[in-house]
């Protein structure tokens, strides 16, 4: 940057840490200078001086500066610092240029005296105007054009030769803008680009800005007193006029900046997910594919590496439209634009902006791919019908991130919608028929499985052709499996899904159908009859026989429910018969893998009874009750029920067993350890609710978890670390994990065999390593090496995500970085 240093430098602190500084440079009467102010956030400093330098190069500087009598500019430059930058055509720049042009255009009529003032040096730039435009008031001779207006030394105030134009007064600038007509914007831009320090040229180097306070006005006044040079007075006026314009520009750009819609990671994610939904193979999809360049998502929702987040970048996409080459797209808080794509090295992205900035992805793609526009039109119906589902779905995503750590999953929700639409009305909890006749609902279900495949497919097609091609045409069975996943998912959601319980209502998959029931149905119905109508002996036999069915199979799970078995099984829990309770819980534990069953168990008050059973002296019974609670408490309402009935306290009580290290345990003590394991499993499920985390802490769970953390067995460690990892979202737990010396054990278990356990350990470290002492402890206990090893050896994505997060956090400490090196 040439010239002096800007005065009146107005700097706006970034509203969010991820946005860049917007230094607005305003000068007083002196020479304005664009100043490259590197973004000096902590993060960019941390990423090394080289990175910070690179950052400065990419930083958009918005500045408004005044110059000469009639030219003012405010601009976003692609690169700041070097002599000739280029002004970007952004809406902001364009409007600023227009303001400046308006000012200059009207200058000669409003301030005729000042317009005649001759610049100290001419403003000079390459023009694109052709000679034929210059007519009245200009002298044309060969390749040279001169203005008729001349200064007192008879030099023309405007001189154009060999496409270089020199202008020496505002009057001539006004005229030139008039001549340029529709090209005035281009000319003004070229002028500003070529004359980065216009005020010095116009008024002379004396008006260059001086560091510190703005003295130009005072100096001008001094000079005015000393001599009677009329020039000084004019200069003073020009200076004042420019300052006025300056303020005006500043105000309008501020207004515009504040109105700018800034993208957020959540908005980007929604848009990407929505588009993904309509992408894939086939002719009618809007895109062939749409992928993030990185699978790892930071906790703030960004996928860009931290040193790019500093520049407001959220993530990068590779989009393959049907009709063009793959597009490499950057999503940033300022908008969406094309970047330079991937270099030879697969991981390198050329971050430089290569296109205009669009307000969102769809706008960009509309611009780039005609096929996209065409197919979007076809999708319009679905696209605009979607919002309700989209909402539902977004909801899932958010939770997903919360509940499963950093993992990213995508479920096709349209599939589920189709089900909802084609199904008959949802089943209400069905009163148990005395004679236990097969329920019609169940009927439907069987039909669904056995016969109605074709009908089902046909039912989908007419509803929406577009959906049909989104749905992968597969056997009904496959759909039911994936639907199951969806509902499982929605279970997990519920916690963070605000307070609504909408997700509680699961769509039922029933259809008009025939009476073709599988034989299991009749057998299960008979067994339920014996359980209901038999004494303890008959009940136990029937319960044991029921366990011989494949209870992992949905047919059986729903058969038990549909013949009223759940109610009977839960009633058994309320009796005095230990054998019946055990038999019943063994079945409930299995079938509560099914989310619909879980809800029905909760509806029948099963959780309250199971919580009571935790007080039983029979250890088998305690274990089974805790394990079943672990299954059922996967949705919010259930977790709340457990807490409200004192379940958390009792579960924490189960954790209290003998020190684990001791050798040759009696069967009695081994049983205690098993009870503790089951308790930890249940707490793990419950700990997904914030209030439960607090309840566990208040019940004294932390020291007990810390003790169990010393266990040598992965089946104990997984639920314990799982719970700790879940709770580490709370500052109180993070502190406890540090002070109760749990880091050491977490680090130790990074080197185990069990990937799930490693993942939870890494995730716990990730959440705790916000704290500096904790980072030091990780290093101190040798945690960096196993983390690094996992990073290079593992192919498990969830594990990698957790490990990356842990390393990222640990790298905040300089010593840790050095150690890695």
């Amino acid at each position, binding site marked *: 940057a040439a010239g002096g240093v800007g005065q009146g430098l107005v700097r706006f602190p970034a509203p969010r840490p991820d946005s860049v500084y917007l230094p607005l440079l305003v000068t007083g009467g002196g020479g304005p200078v664009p100043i490259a102010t590197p973004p000096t956030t902590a993060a960019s400093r941390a990423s090394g001086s080289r990175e910070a330098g690179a950052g400065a190069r990419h930083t958009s500087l918005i500045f408004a500066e005044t110059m000469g009598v009639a030219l003012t500019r405010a601009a976003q430059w692609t690169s700041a610092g070097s002599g000739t930058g280029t002004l970007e055509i952004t809406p902001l720049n364009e409007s600023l240029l227009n303001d400046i042009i308006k000012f200059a255009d009207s200058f000669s009529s409003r301030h005729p005296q000042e317009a005649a003032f001759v610049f100290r040096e001419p403003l000079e730039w390459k023009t694109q105007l052709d000679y034929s435009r210059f007519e009245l008031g200009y002298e044309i001779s060969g390749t040279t054009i001169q203005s008729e207006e001349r200064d007192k030394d008879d030099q023309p105030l405007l001189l154009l030769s060999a496409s270089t134009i020199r202008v020496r007064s505002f009057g001539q600038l006004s005229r030139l803008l008039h001549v340029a007509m529709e090209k005035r914007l281009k000319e003004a831009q070229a002028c500003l680009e070529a004359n980065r320090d216009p005020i010095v040229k116009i008024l002379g180097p004396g008006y260059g800005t001086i560091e510190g306070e703005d003295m130009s006005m005072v100096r001008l006044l001094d000079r005015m007193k000393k001599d009677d040079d009329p020039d000084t007075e004019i200069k003073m006026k020009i200076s004042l006029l420019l300052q006025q314009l300056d303020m005006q520009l500043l105000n309008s750009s501020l207004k515009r900046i504040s109105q700018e819609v800034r993208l957020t990671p959540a908005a980007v994610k929604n848009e990407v997910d929505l588009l993904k939904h309509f992408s894939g193979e086939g002719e009618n999809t809007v895109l062939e594919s749409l992928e993030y360049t990185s699978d790892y998502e930071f906790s703030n929702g960004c996928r860009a590496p931290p040193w790019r987040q500093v520049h407001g970048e959220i993530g990068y996409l590779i989009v393959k439209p049907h009709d063009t080459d793959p597009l490499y797209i950057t999503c940033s808080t300022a908008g969406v634009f094309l970047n330079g794509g991937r270099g030879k090295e697969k991981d390198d992205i050329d971050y430089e902006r290569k296109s205009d900035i669009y307000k969102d992805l769809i706008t960009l793609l509309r611009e780039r791919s005609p096929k996209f526009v065409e197919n979007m039109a076809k999708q319009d119906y679905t696209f605009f019908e979607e919002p309700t589902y989209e909402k539902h779905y977004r909801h899932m995503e958010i939770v997903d991130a919360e509940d499963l750590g950093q993992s990213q999953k995508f479920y096709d929700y349209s599939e589920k919608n189709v089900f909802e639409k084609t199904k008959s009305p949802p089943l209400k909890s069905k009163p148990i028929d005395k004679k236990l006749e097969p329920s019609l609902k169940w009927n439907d279900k069987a039909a669904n499985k056995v016969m109605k495949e074709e009908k089902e497919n046909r039912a989908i097609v007419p509803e929406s052709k577009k959906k049909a091609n989104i749905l992968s045409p597969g056997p009904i069975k496959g759909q039911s499996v994936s639907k199951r996943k969806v509902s499982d998912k929605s279970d997990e959601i519920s916690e963070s899904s605000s307070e609504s319980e909408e997700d509680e209502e699961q769509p039922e998959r029933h259809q008009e159908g025939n009476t073709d029931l599988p034989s299991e149905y009749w057998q299960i119905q008979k067994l339920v009859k014996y359980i209901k109508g038999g004494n303890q*002996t008959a009940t136990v036999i029937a319960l044991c026989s029921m366990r011989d069915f494949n209870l992992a199979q949905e047919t059986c799970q729903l058969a038990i429910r549909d013949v009223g078995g759940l109610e009977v099984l839960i009633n058994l829990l309320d009796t005095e018969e230990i054998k019946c309770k055990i038999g019943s819980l063994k079945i409930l534990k299995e079938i509560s893998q099914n989310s619909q069953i879980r809800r029905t168990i909760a509806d029948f008050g099963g959780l309250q009874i199971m919580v009571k059973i935790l007080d039983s*002296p029979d250890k088998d019974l305690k274990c089974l009750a805790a394990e079943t609670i672990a299954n059922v408490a996967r949705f919010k309402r259930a977790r709340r029920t457990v807490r409200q009935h004192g379940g958390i306290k009792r579960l924490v009580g189960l954790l209290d067993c003998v020190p684990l290290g001791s050798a040759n345990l009696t069967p009695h003590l081994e049983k205690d350890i098993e009870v503790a394991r089951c308790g930890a499993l249940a707490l793990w499920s419950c700990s997904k609710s914030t209030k439960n985390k607090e309840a566990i802490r208040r019940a004294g769970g932390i020291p007990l978890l810390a003790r169990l953390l010393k266990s040598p067995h992965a089946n104990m460690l997984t639920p314990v670390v799982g719970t700790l990892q879940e709770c580490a979202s709370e500052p109180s737990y993070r502190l406890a994990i540090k002070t109760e010396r749990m880091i050491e054990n977490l680090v130790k278990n990074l080197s185990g065999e069990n990937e799930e356990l490693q993942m939870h350990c890494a995730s716990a470290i990730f959440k705790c390593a916000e704290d500096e002492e904790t980072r030091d402890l990780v290093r101190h206990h040798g945690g960096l090496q196993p983390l690094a090893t996992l990073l290079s050896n593992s192919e498990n994505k969830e594990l990698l995500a957790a490990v990356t997060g842990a390393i990222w956090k640990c790298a905040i400490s300089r010593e840790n970085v050095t150690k890695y090196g």
Partner: protein
Amino acid sequence: MNRKKLQKLAESLCRTAKHFNKIEVECLIKLFHTLVVEPSDRHAIVGLDRNTFRNILHVTFGMTDDMIMDRVFRAFDKDNDSCVSVTEWVEGLSIFLRGTLEEKMKYCFEVYDLNGDGYISREEMFHMLKNSLLKQPSEEDPDEGIKDLVEITLKKMDYDHDGKLSYTDFEKAVRDENLLLEAFGPCLPDIKSSMAFEMQAFQETGDM
């Protein structure tokens, strides 16, 4: 019974009834004598007759099924003299209250093998289960449910498919699913009544 005799008996019974210590055995012997109705005839066998024993099972251990109680008496009465002697009493209670799974399986099988032929047959099962279901008056054959229950049990436990349960079948089924130990009716005390009995026998009797 004098002190010395009691000590000697307790010592010997301690060896056969492994789950009790000497003091506990002494308590049980004392308890036995409070329960036994002193025979008028000095030479008659000292012991608990069927009715007294059944009464104990019913009152103390909450058993209700006559047939099962009968079978439990037979299981205690090893020498088949219709009288539970003090030795049979202590040895029987050792298994009854504190037996290992192995011991309890043998005991239960003995109880359920009504005719003592080493197998639990369909008929025996039917006999033991016949009161286990509420009668449905609407059904044509009121025994249909019981017959079905027998078939279900056989399907579950008859590993060699010979239509009856050998001890091997029974053992295998119970090891696989402990709940089947008392498959054909309760013949062991539940945890509450056995704890109550032990407390009464070992503390209160000990104080006597």
